[in-house]
């Protein structure tokens, strides 16, 4: 997934589409933001300058579906290796789960979550630096009649388990089934996430990063592309784009000295 932050207006349509697609409920008190569930959360950031130089950007944040830990990084013995693909994966959240309730799918690179197997220990929540994992602190108070409007493809979750963005995995399953019946490959537009479809400004692009035919493959080679917290070697599959240097700088932590040097080099962050 590639998200162009210069196109994002922060309208929140992606979040709403995500909630609707994935049967994320509305709690009694949604003002309690550190307990409400938003698989795709939109952060607002600014450049910290006073008016009239103030600039604002929005960062939609789904699960990063990290591949994680390149060879040579600490903990490499925890890598899951796929002998067929000659690749390794070590997302921060997957190896920690004691009950194998989350897994790395080698075919898609999607980090899955199996709520019915989750014991609710929240170790994965603690492991994720992006706060992309949510624990169900409450039972969702579905108003009378609303369960009939839920998507039949996604099971609503119960209290006491963790959930997160799955890149609309049921959509992938449907696309895969269709391709199987048709005897074809899954086309770029056959599998799109709800957020990518809903974005009115076309800021979210979805596809296979490794497929040269797909738009995302070309987008990630742009010099304005970056990922969140690259220094942690989580190797996320969500890329962001912005021509504004201060936005790109907000994506990662820099040792103070480097930060100052970087700011001096770009003339104050623009």
């Amino acid at each position: 997934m590639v998200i162009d932050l210069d196109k994002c207006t922060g309208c929140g349509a992606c979040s709403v589409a995500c909630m609707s697609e994935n049967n994320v409920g509305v709690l009694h008190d949604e003002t309690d933001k550190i307990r409400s569930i938003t698989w795709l959360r939109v952060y607002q950031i600014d450049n910290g300058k006073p008016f009239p130089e103030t600039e604002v950007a929005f960062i939609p944040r789904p699960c990063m579906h990290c591949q994680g830990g390149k060879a040579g990084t600490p903990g490499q013995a925890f890598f899951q290796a796929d002998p067929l693909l000659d690749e390794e994966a070590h997302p921060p959240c997957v190896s920690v789960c004691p009950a194998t309730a989350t897994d790395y799918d080698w075919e898609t690179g999607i980090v899955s979550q199996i709520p019915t197997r989750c014991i609710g220990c929240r170790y994965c929540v603690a492991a994720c630096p992006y706060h992309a994992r949510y624990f169900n602190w409450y039972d969702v108070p579905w108003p009378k009649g609303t369960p009939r409007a839920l998507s039949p493809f996604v099971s609503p979750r119960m209290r006491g388990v963790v959930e997160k963005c799955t890149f609309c995995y049921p959509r992938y399953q449907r696309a895969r089934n269709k391709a199987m019946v048709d005897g074809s490959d899954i086309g770029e537009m056959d599998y799109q996430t709800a957020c990518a479809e809903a974005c009115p400004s076309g800021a979210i692009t979805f596809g296979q990063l490794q497929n040269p035919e797909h738009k995302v493959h070309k987008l990630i080679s742009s010099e304005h592309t970056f990922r969140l917290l690259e220094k942690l070697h989580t190797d996320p599959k969500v890329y962001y784009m912005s021509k504004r240097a201060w936005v790109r700088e907000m994506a990662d932590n820099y040792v103070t000295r480097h930060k100052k040097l970087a700011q001096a080099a770009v003339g104050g962050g623009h």
Partner: protein
Amino acid sequence: MRRWFDDLPKYADDQSWHPKGVKRCRPEVFLFWLGLPLTLLAYFTVGAVLCLGLGLNQTNMNDYFAFGVWIVVDLAVIALGAGAFFTSFLNYIVGKTELKPIVNAAVLIGFICYVGAILMLGIDIGQPIRGWFGFWHANVHSMLTEVMFCITTYAIVLCIELLPSVLDNKRISRVPEFGTFSHNLHTIMIVFAAAGTFLSFFHQGSLGGMFGVLYARPFAARGGLGIWPWTFFLFIWSAIAAGPSFTTMIVMLTEKISGRKLTSHNVKMLMGKISGWLLVTYMLAKSADTAWWVWVKLPSMGLTMDDMYHNPYGYWLMWFELGLFGWVPALMLLQEKVRESYGLLFLAMVMTCTGVALNRFIFTIQSLALPVLPFEKFYAYLPSWQEWGIASLVLGFGLLVYMLAYRYLPIFPQEPELNDK
């Protein structure tokens, strides 16, 4: 014909259950003081009913503080309960038989710590009924899986290790079958001491490994040896340093409260010496680990030490952990004069235990409190009264078991001779 209930009046005689040659308070006084643990357990029950019935929304944990006071207490009591396995290891396997007078107490305290921790963990998980999934669908890559397996099995080992003390009760041991069983258990105790050492060694380590493997959490992340991050070894090291101190500290507290001598001062001094040497070596390793983290690990993540300490979790926590409750008690315990003084030895041991408990608090809470994303906010956490209720289980359950054991079981073999005069 003798009927089973003919002997009941004799069994009702409380004194006949007391260990040989010791004095205990009157039953009504004992019953009065039992009110304290029972009150704590009642508080726990209210918290447990609310958390199990209404869910973990009864706590003040949230998606930023996924772990809270329960995990802190769990880690702390498991570290402090390490006196059980380490004292057993020294006594039965290394052959340090001078520690025999305190082994029973160490096992009893370990049993309380582990069982209390397991009961709390049962409430901490969001789906307690699925607790067995960790065994059934075990993920062998997870440190937590290893913790679940080893804590559970070690708790069973502790039950077995405690059993001879129960069977040695004055009345129970009169039943010939129990007496024989107890005697046989004593002879094979080395096997359980070895099993306990193996299990405890690994889960103490895995509890530390749990944090070290969080490679995307800069405060906790560490490098390591093979699959084991440095925190794996540091947690074992600190636990075996603090465990003997905690055991001795509880024995000393019991002495002060009961007004009776329970173990000779030599035993306490030896425990202090063991604790002191382990603590000094641990502090050397911990200081080296901290230096590596500050100068190598953090800069590689784009961070500096200043980014890791914000009020209320400021630098003071580090100075307290490494300085006041780390190096100071370590150096104190190495001094023979300190160990000879009852008061100073007690103080140094309290400081040792505080330092290790503080280390567990820092790894649990500070690791989670620091926002990793540069544009994330800092959130504070204070436990709810329901959380304190659950956390008070260890104290309530511990007091209850300890009071009953002190009154009825021969936990302190030196007590009759020390109080003869």
